[in-house]
């Protein structure tokens, strides 16, 4: 009986491979797995955030639903799914509906090139790093779309802030990543990890690493850089008018983005999946979650910066330092080789 099913499956598989080609098939399966993984991971991160925040704030966080409240976010997700999707009358409905979908797309694409392990990567393309940053740029666009389409002053202010902030912080982010690229000589994510055999890049590039982490926090709109959605000022910023699962998508995208920037940081500076005893993917996840924990810790400790202070910080300090760092790196590499 079961033998029969397996035979059938193999026949189907071979037919599919013949029809689509092996690569395309792996890609599709990979994307489906990613979709599932992204959801589960985001739910886990939300739970983790609440738990971390709770313990930082002298309380215990969610504890009722499931062991240690693990299922709390799933229940919340179901609640969000069950809510009415309100589309206010004066919005530009096409942009309004597209925005939450668009905010989620680049997030999925980035997962294609993340090296979870020596072989656990969907496609190791030779411009992997570029791909992540390029698609990361779409994020801003969708936030601006959502904020503009909402026809709400708070949302618009949030969107404007978001664009200005993301443009400013993408530059030091890229420049610090470039320093690593200059050292490793490749844009392939897997290649960068391989270049870190022995010593992690964070020891060669501590400045770039720090700049990257600060820039990444700003890029994901996390406190103390959460001014686009500054609750006490702009109510909810660009997603003020969103309800139900549309809001849920923004929310999931935020946490998934957090995972991506932490994963990229791990790849660039902390040796990716390298580590003793445990298999690669375990090390990768451990490093990513440690970084995410650090980001959460910062969020629950610091007040929020003001908008102009944030911009000053990026343009007057981070970008010049990042440029200098890149220059010095290039010089040294030229001399050493």
């Amino acid at each position, binding site marked *: 009986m079961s033998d029969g099913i397996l035979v059938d499956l193999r026949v189907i598989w071979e037919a599919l491979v013949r029809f689509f080609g092996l690569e395309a098939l792996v890609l599709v399966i990979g994307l489906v797995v990613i979709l599932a993984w992204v959801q589960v991971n985001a739910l886990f991160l939300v739970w983790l955030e609440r738990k971390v925040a709770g313990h930082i704030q*002298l309380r215990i966080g969610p504890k009722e639903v499931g062991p240690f409240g693990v299922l709390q976010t799933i229940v919340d997700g179901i609640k969000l799914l069950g809510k009415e999707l309100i589309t206010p009358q004066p919005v530009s409905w096409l942009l309004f509906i597209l925005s939450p979908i668009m905010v989620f797309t680049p997030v999925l694409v980035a997962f294609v090139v993340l090296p979870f392990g020596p072989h656990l990567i969907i496609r190791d393309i030779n411009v992997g790093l570029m791909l992540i940053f390029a698609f990361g740029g779409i994020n801003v666009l969708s936030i601006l779309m959502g904020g503009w389409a909402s026809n709400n002053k708070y949302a618009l202010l949030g969107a404007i802030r978001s664009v200005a902030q993301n443009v400013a912080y993408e530059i030091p982010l890229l420049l610090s990543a470039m320093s690593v690229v200059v050292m490793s000589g490749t844009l392939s994510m897997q290649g960068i990890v391989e270049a870190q055999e022995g010593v992690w890049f964070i020891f060669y590039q501590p400045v770039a690493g720090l700049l990257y982490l600060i820039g990444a926090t700003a890029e994901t709109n996390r406190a*103390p850089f959460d001014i686009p959605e*500054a609750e006490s000022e702009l109510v909810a910023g660009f997603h003020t008018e969103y309800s139900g699962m549309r809001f849920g998508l923004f929310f999931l995208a935020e946490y998934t983005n957090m995972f991506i920037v932490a994963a990229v940081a791990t790849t660039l500076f902390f040796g990716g999946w390298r580590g003793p005893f445990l298999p690669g993917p375990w090390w990768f996840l451990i490093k990513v979650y440690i970084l995410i924990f650090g980001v959460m810790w910062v969020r629950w*400790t610091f007040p*929020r910066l003001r*908008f102009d*202070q944030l911009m000053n910080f990026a343009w007057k300090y981070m970008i010049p330092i990042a440029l200098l760092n890149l220059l010095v790196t290039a010089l040294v590499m030229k001399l050493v080789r």
Partner: protein
Amino acid sequence: MLRKTLTEDSFYLNLGPQHPSTHGVLHLLLKLDGERILECKPLVGYSHRAHEHMGQNRTYLQFLPNTSRMDYLGGLCYNHAYCLAVEKACGIEVPERARYIRTVCAELNRISSHLLWFGAYLMDLGAFTPFLYAFDDREDILAILGEVTGSRLTYSYCRFGGVNRDLNQNFLDGTKAFIPKLRKRLKDYRTLVTKNIIFLNRTKGIGTVSAELARDWALTGPNLRACGVAYDLRRAEPYSIYPELEFEIPTATAGDCYDRYWVRMAEMEQSLRIVEQALGRLPEGPVKAAGVPQWIQPPAGDYHFSYESPRGHLGIYFVSDGGRVPLRMKWRTPSFSNLSILSEILPGTLVADTIAILGSIDVVIPEIDR
């Protein structure tokens, strides 16, 4: 709507009445150029409950529970002030022990009010954690006060000629344990918040008020003391047992958000000192004066009483015609004057500063609206 406003240089933003940072139902009508404020009009009155009108239609005792509903954070102080005002008009002598008990409770109430302000202010600035720390401490005070007053927020503990009931052992033990605990926590707040670079950047030099401007707008309380004027009614027009106690009036010089913050934090320490001293000297005796008439009927005339509430100069003015019901019952609430200065200091700042300044002024909306 959006298109029309955007073609012009400026647009209006209704901050409130429903907004996370207006702490109630305050409505700020802001005229903005981008994020810069050109003009600000505070609109109040959303929670007007006609307390003054009620005061003119109730006997003096019936009005007592109303007092703590005006300022729900400093309810016991309002209670205390009202009793002092009426006692002064009628010439009722309060027993020594009752005066001490009232002062202890009022100062604890002042600390809890400042603690809530501290937490809420930091939340306005985007730091969520101190809010829960402050609430944790405040919870202790509410539990202690609940032990003797029977309520947590809207107290009716003071009576004409004394207090409702004597302190119990739980109150004394709780306060004794609480004082060192809060001292330790204030130290933590100093390292967590006061020295935080982001916090300093957000508050230093923001919303500066000079002493002259403060006088023009009739600022009182910590907001005034942050401008360098050491005006505290507990010292300026001493009432109750304050002349017998040792405490300082913390003042700052710059009059910006940071100084207002600093003054309140320092005031909490002074209030702890007052509580400690008063409890140490707590005399024995009755807690209620004997022979207080059943119907309070102050002699015909008008009476004013000033009290230092957690937010500043609380003035109670009532006119009696010798009857059981006052002819006029006026409450000068400090936040009313303190808030009006916003239209002066907000223009030229950013939206983010609006929140920082509004929070630092420490307004309680129901107290403004009465």
